[in-house]
């Protein structure tokens, strides 16, 4: 059974207290463990909030202005979905009536008096981890259901240069991703693309892939595409600003890059790099920082880079040993150690400008080809706002993807477009990421969404069992 990666899902906790001051310490402690906290001051407000938010835990004072924790328990218990929410009670007065009311009901736990912070955290974490990600949790991984999933998102092939294929889409692609690209028009065969990079312009995202690594039957239509004459692809020489404290390494890299028509402009310190950026940003095609430490010069560099005019600011590549660095269209991370091929591919991509590409595409009149990126994944679980799936490459938070699974066919439209909310790399598996997605549509309550999921799941299980029996 797959464990949900730590930090992937943010828990929601509702605090119900008689006095606001009572909540202050609890709010701080829960924020420390990355919980989303909503504080309510009456039973009425709490019930309304719980119904809307479907929290993973409620922490309530036993005595309230308009009722008690026992009342809260009874009201939730009567609800077919909300009864799953664990309630932790703080018994302040310890009267016989309070204690009796608590003992007659199956609360998740209780504190006699105000708990010590450590005691509070231990108990809270214990309850949250027991419910996995949520009390509303459909763990596909532990069932016999087929958890295989197809993750897809739309794109449009807009053109190519000699080195790169350009696809406009709604999502960033990662350099580690190998994606099947299926054209909507069946007369074009699918292609496999890898080692992707991203650019952004006013129209959105352009994914770029090294042409040399495009494979598959569809290679034939890629080869026939007209080649765009962008400024970068037409340039005799491209200039790279390279920061590296090691002169020897810089000299060697300059020699190597000469063979790829890239001129290296070496800065031995970040201050020198910043000066070069300030004095002639237009002449620089790209910036490559061999490393970026957490020190004063890095802070200064970031300030200068961020304040340089966006129109002339070259994209930046930063060498990193961190496994969790996330690239954006403007700042790309390349994991050290890296091979020469991946470095050149990243540089080639960075030299291109999205606006230039778009202009050349418009000039060329090329109609483009609609495609669907597809990649296999594994559905791990579903919960009240979405769920978790596993893929072999990182998706970028904020991207929108489509999930295809037999279960989702029973809930049409709900999983046509889900939002990638968070991603965490699986620590013990290579090239495997867990993706937290949100499927909740605007205007739909969590309870309604979860009701649909539960019904669909029951039907899915029945249908599968019936087909197995036959």
């Amino acid at each position, binding site marked *: 059974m797959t464990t949900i990666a730590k930090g992937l899902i943010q828990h929601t906790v509702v605090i119900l207290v008689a006095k606001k001051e009572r909540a202050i310490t609890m709010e701080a402690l829960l924020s420390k463990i990355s919980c989303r906290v909503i504080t309510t001051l009456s039973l009425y407000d709490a019930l309304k909030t719980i119904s809307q938010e479907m929290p993973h835990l409620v922490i309530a004072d036993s005595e309230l202005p308009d009722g008690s924790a026992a009342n809260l328990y009874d009201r939730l218990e009567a609800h077919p979905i909300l009864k799953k929410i664990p309630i932790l009670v703080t018994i302040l007065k310890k009267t016989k009536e309070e204690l009796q009311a608590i003992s007659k009901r199956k609360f998740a736990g209780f504190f006699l008096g105000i708990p010590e912070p450590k005691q509070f955290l231990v108990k809270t974490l214990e309850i949250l981890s027991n419910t996995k990600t949520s009390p509303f949790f459909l763990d596909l991984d532990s069932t016999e259901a087929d958890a295989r999933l197809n993750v897809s998102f739309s794109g449009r092939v807009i053109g190519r240069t000699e080195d790169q294929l350009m696809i406009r889409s709604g999502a960033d692609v990662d350099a580690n991703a190998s994606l099947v690209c299926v054209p909507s028009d069946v007369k074009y065969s699918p292609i496999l693309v890898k080692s992707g990079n991203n650019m952004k312009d006013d129209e959105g995202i352009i994914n770029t892939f090294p042409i*040399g690594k495009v494979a598959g039957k569809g*290679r*034939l239509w890629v080869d026939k595409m007209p080649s765009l004459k962008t400024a970068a692809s037409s340039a005799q020489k491209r200039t790279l600003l390279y920061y590296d404290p090691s002169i020897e390494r810089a000299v060697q890299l300059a*020699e*190597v890059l000469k063979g790829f028509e890239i001129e290296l402009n070496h800065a031995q310190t970040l201050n020198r790099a910043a000066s070069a950026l300030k004095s002639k940003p237009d002449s620089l095609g790209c910036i490559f920082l061999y490393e970026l430490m957490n020190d004063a010069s890095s802070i200064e560099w970031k300030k200068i880079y961020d304040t340089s005019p966006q129109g002339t600011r070259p994209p930046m590549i930063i060498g990193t040993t961190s496994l969790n660095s996330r690239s954006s269209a403007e700042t790309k991370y390349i994991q*050290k150690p890296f*091979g020469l091929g991946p470095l*050149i591919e990243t540089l080639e991509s960075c030299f291109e400008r999205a606006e230039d590409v778009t202009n050349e595409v418009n000039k060329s009149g090329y109609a483009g080809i609609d495609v669907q990126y597809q990649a296999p994944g594994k559905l791990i679980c579903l919960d009240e706002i979405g769920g978790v799936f596993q893929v072999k490459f990182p998706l970028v938070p904020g991207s929108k993807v489509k999930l295809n699974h037999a279960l989702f066919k029973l809930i049409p439209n709900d999983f046509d477009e889900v939002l990638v909310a968070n991603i965490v790399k699986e620590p013990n598996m290579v090239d495997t990421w867990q993706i937290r997605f949100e499927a909740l549509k605007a205007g739909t309550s969590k309870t309604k969404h979860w009701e649909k999921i539960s019904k669909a799941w029951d039907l899915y299980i029945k249908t599968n069992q019936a087909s197995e029996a036959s």
Partner: protein
Amino acid sequence: MAWKILIADFMKDPEMDPFYEELLAFDSEVVFSVSHSVDDFSVHMGSTELVALVVVAKDFTPEVEIAYRQYQQLIGCLPDFLALICDEPNPRFMVSVFEFGVENILKKDQCVVKLKALAEKVKITLADPTTPEHHAIKLAVGMKTSNQSLIAEAGNAMRSIAGEDYRAAYFAGRALEAQGVYAEAESAYRQAYSINKMFRPGSSSLAETLMVTGKINEAVTLLEKLEKSNPRDIARKSALIAAYTEQGQPEKAAKALAEATAINPEHPKLIEAKVNVMLSEGKLAEAFHLIPKMENAGILFASRLNDMGIQLSKSGKAKHALALYNKAHKIVRTDLKYKLSMNCALACRRLEDFEMALKYLARCKKEFGRSYDKLDQLIVATKGALEMKAKSSNEAS
């Protein structure tokens, strides 16, 4: 049969020992082996189960080059099945391994997880008959065992998908080269180059076949372009030395020779280049003296030798040609030995030693893996000539 991933660690890095322990105990359809010497490494490379290579090194030493070159010669270049473990390779090291198609560079502390993932990838890829890797390994087995049927089968499979993937085009070229069809091999390598210009083994193979098919100017243009990003590759410098000599540019050849000698005067490819030049200039004695120092000589050398031998035979020096061929047979690439055996047979025919010629023809058939038209015709003709000779000497007596 369990596929094998070989880890070559010639510097015997003690930090790697706990990782080796874990990898050697890895229970899977794909197993790991570790080699700490070049001799042991060569033994492993001869195995038909070996499919992937990982080298542990801090710099591009002669041993590291031997490792990647042997893999390239015996299996080809499968970028996804090659890796280097080095925490911080310098750019010269990066470009040197890039010549062999190596793009995966791993940190020591991540190598176990990454190599286990590689094992999984090897298992899945080789089980899939639609992948270039599947056919590439089949081709490698065919070449190691001189099985021309397997070579042809793998080659045909690659040719059918050569337009879809630069790796398939490259391996189609290798198969055609192994079958001695150099013009078609050139076309296949050209296709690989046109699909992916960054793939160095494809570019280098194209340059070599251009030289064999006589397109020297185009070969020089390509080699000079590749030289710009890595002027320290002795194999390429050696090819340039031979090409400049063919073009009649002795100054350029001498300059390239001086540069290569300054980098590594004992490099086997440099010696091969010198021998190629000597053969072109008819300096047989000097070439003869240097040939034993060569290793795994390629198609260019085999082609020059063929030209030289024909000239010697025509000028009545068939004995010299035979001696040259026999010396070269010891050092030429395994898949080219049959050509030398054929040349030996032809030289023996000129010396009218038909019995010896038939022995060389039998060796040629064994090394090629099966009969082929020219060979069969020659066997028939030689047997006929032997009978005629026997008949003549009976009549004379």
